[in-house]
């Protein structure tokens, strides 16, 4: 799946909010009809970042975003370009802020990583992008009494500039992506 990010080729927004924290757009899907995708940029909290803005997207079901939904977009490049355009619009309104994108599972985290790498030149015209190895992996399906089998680096917030170079090994996979306006 080769995703090309282009802010000139996006789906039009159906709804927006004045503070640019919620957007919707329709994306045609392979199994028929368009699906309305909701993008939210919401305040979240971590002991390391403190308050930060988290970007999430997916179909809205009963007022909640399902970011695990498997959507077969007709034009994946256009859908992802629209999602990232929401983040870009938010940052243009809040130029001092940064937003984070969390790969909701390993597959998605790797997919986002590849999108950033493949669109390195284009994205770096608009954003400063960092990848973080993050303790987020811990909270997924882990009981707090479980023995921890993890890389200590994942317990410390370490931002790395994402380079346009191949992924060397599994450990270099970032699972959280941070975007600042350039």
């Amino acid at each position: 799946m080769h995703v090309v990010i282009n802010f000139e080729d996006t789906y039009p927004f159906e709804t927006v909010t004045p503070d640019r924290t919620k957007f919707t757009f329709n994306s045609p899907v392979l199994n028929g009809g368009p699906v309305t995708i909701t993008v939210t940029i919401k305040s979240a909290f971590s002991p390391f970042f403190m308050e930060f803005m988290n970007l999430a997207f997916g179909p809205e079901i009963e007022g909640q975003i399902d970011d695990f939904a498997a959507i077969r977009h007709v034009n994946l490049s256009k859908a992802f370009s629209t999602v990232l355009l929401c983040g870009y619009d938010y940052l243009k309104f809040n130029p001092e802020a940064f937003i984070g994108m969390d790969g909701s599972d390993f597959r998605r985290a790797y997919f986002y990583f590849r999108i950033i790498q493949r669109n390195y030149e284009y994205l770096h015209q608009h954003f400063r992008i960092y990848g973080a190895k993050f303790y987020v992996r811990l909270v997924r399906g882990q009981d707090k009494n479980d023995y921890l089998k993890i890389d200590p680096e994942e317990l410390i917030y370490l931002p790395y500039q994402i380079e346009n170079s191949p992924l060397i090994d599994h450990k270099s996979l970032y699972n959280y992506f941070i975007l600042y306006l350039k």
Partner: protein
Amino acid sequence: MEKRRSEPFEEFFNRVKKANPNVRIDNTPVKSNKRDSFAENMKSQEQADFFMKMLKMLQQEQKEKEQKEK
């Protein structure tokens, strides 16, 4: 450092209206993501304390390992 200009709403709205003249302003709030996001978990003091404790423990282990290697 110079504070950067924030794009005014009118400018933004005119731009999105060009792409879709029927675009609406909708302030309906969205609840958290369907899954229990780590961000939500982190709002709990108990969780935050747990991770800080783990972090300190791992840093200590790392320090001890480094000292042994020396």
